[in-house]
């Protein structure tokens, strides 16, 4: 059995640590680029949402390289994500008839027995001892936690750095080095080193950078390729950005969900505007925009794939928040056709207006009515 997974931001690095620790043969997905999407779109139905297509691209490339098992975390939420695997299986087994899928769904939906059975499938192909397995899992968990911390810190500090590009370069080399490690212990060490290095970056706290929250559909905001590397761009513009939805957030949310104590702050904030869970992360999107406003950020950018159902609902609500709270929110809808140039212009114009609003203190409704 040779396992592969789809790309999902930092998850691929943590999964590598896990597979290394469990001694399971694996093929890591290629870093996403335009070809990934092209191949993926070719084999996907035209109207499916973007994450599906990119994932298909990942799978096909990995299968070509010899992978025969796909590991995928499903969900039975009311969005398409939950039905992804069904269709992907159908499409991919045409491509490779003996392909295996291991879908990790919530035990609440598929029953505890099926859940354990599926976990066991992975377990069986691992040659590691019990103790090694346990420590591999712990290490993978810490990897993703620390990686997400480093990510968040670097995105925040980019607004304060003395030497332009310091945070971005550090983040790059951190991920490069971490991906090159072939055992979890070494990887954790690298990450901890970088965490320290990040603290040593010379900062200038007299700067008062723009602060922007990144909200929206979880896959598109976590996987940098699918949002055309928006966080890196914001770092280039010396903007501090913040994103709450991360792989470690997702893990925590999933485990706390059965107890109904997940994401309390977000849900509480969203209550007035969207009292019910609508599927995907629509409610989170609304809640986060309100939290960002409460924590005095300058604005928020919502990112969503074309025709993403929960985000369309959120998108209807965000203008009211923008108006009532005087809090600027821009929506970027992503599809295959989206041109990088047009996208950049919109981000720049938005940042300019945030700058202007801050300087003059006028209401957002006034700034945004200027022709840009």
């Amino acid at each position, binding site marked *: 059995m040779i396992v592969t997974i789809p790309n999902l931001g930092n998850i691929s690095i943590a999964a590598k640590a896990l597979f290394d620790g469990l001694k399971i043969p694996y093929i890591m997905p290629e870093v996403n680029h335009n070809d990934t999407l092209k191949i993926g779109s070719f084999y996907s139905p035209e109207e499916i949402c973007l994450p599906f297509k990119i994932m298909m691209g990942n799978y096909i490339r990995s299968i070509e390289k010899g992978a025969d098992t796909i590991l995928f975390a499903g969900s039975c939420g009311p969005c398409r994500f939950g*039905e992804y695997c069904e269709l992907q299986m159908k499409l991919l087994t045409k491509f490779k008839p003996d392909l295996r899928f291991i879908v990790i769904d919530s035990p609440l939906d598929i029953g505890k027995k099926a859940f354990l059975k599926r976990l066991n499938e992975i377990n069986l192909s691992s040659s590691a001892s019990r103790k090694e397995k346990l420590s591999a899992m712990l290490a993978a968990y810490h990897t993703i936690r620390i990686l997400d911390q480093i990510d968040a810190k670097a995105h925040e500090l980019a607004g304060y750095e003395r030497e332009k590009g310091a945070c971005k370069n550090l983040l790059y080399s951190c991920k490069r080095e971490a991906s090159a490690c072939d055992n979890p212990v070494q990887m954790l060490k690298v990450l901890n080193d970088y965490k320290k290095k990040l603290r040593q970056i010379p900062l200038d706290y007299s700067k008062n950078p723009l602060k922007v929250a990144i909200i929206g559909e979880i896959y598109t905001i976590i996987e940098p390729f699918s949002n055309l590397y928006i966080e890196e761009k914001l770092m280039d513009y010396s903007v501090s950005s913040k994103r709450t939805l991360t792989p470690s957030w997702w893990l925590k949310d999933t485990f706390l969900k059965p107890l109904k104590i997940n994401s309390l702050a977000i849900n509480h904030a969203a209550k007035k505007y969207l009292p*019910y869970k609508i599927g995907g992360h629509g409610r989170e999107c609304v809640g986060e925009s309100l939290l960002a406003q409460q924590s005095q950020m300058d604005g928020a950018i919502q990112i969503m794939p074309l025709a993403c159902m929960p985000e*369309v609902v959120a998108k209807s609500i965000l203008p009211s928040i923008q108006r009532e709270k005087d809090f600027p929110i821009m929506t970027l809808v992503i599809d295959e056709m989206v041109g990088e140039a047009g996208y950049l212009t919109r981000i720049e114009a938005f940042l300019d207006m945030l700058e202007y609003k801050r300087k003059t203190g006028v209401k957002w409704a006034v700034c945004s009515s200027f022709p840009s």
Partner: protein
Amino acid sequence: MVTVGIPKGLLFPKYHVFTSAFFDELGAQTVSSPDTNKTILDLGTKYCVDDACLSIKVFHGHVAWLKDCCDFLFVPRIMGFKEREFICPMFCGLPEMLRHNITGLPHLIDTPLASLQNDKLYTWAKNVGYRITHDKTVIKRAFNRAMQEQSQFCPGINDTNYGQKIALLGHTYHIHDAFINMDLIQKMNDAGFGIITEEHVPASDKEAAVKRLFKKPFWSFFADYYGAAIHLYQTSAVDGFIYLSSFACGIDSILIELIKSETGEFPFLIIKLDEHTGEAGINTRLEAFLDLMKRRTHDDRYDSQPGEHQYCGKSVV
């Protein structure tokens, strides 16, 4: 007397018998919008966010049309038909979309409904009824009457006295809205084709067909349409499928592929609707498809004798 506005969009064709009886017995007057027309569609595209699917836009149109002539607007927030099943994120967030897209709405009756089980439905009805009257016995009576009338009503179509038969798949609100599907049913009947819809396939047959999936579908629509399509295909009950879908519908995008992958070369026409769909284009494609069907021969008929009309056993609400 209070007036309750009932927009003629989305699942209206499935529940209108229930709602009119229910509100009538409660002592409220009901008013519904006209069948979808150009004005309503234009209102919908004006108010609704661009990215939404056609049916959500049309519903916005109906609501905008009704908003000034009623005290309450009935906007069912249907989360799913069964426990742990869902229908569509847009349905769950529909009342919020309306509130934030259209200003000056009357009170919305938007109590969430998570399951169509009798007791759940009754709790929901109590909640809704309370907005109109505080008299519990009246609510109970209204509920019973509404359920009784609904149980005798089947929203599906099953034509029997035509030469060939086609399964018309897709959302109820696409099939029953002659304006947005441009009189598709009439056109097919005129060309000599009968129609059967998902409601006329018994639930047990649908369930059996759904079993072949790797995973139990958690979309109620999914189980119904997929199950019906596969069952009709396997029993050779129809000569072909027409799927009425709308652009930007996430559920259809998956469902169509899954049905196609099971039925191979079986005649399958997909019609996608949005506010820009032109009638001429649809006519050409429909004619070509029906011509193809006429050339194919087939023997097996699905169910009843010519001229007989069948009712389905299951009521939707």
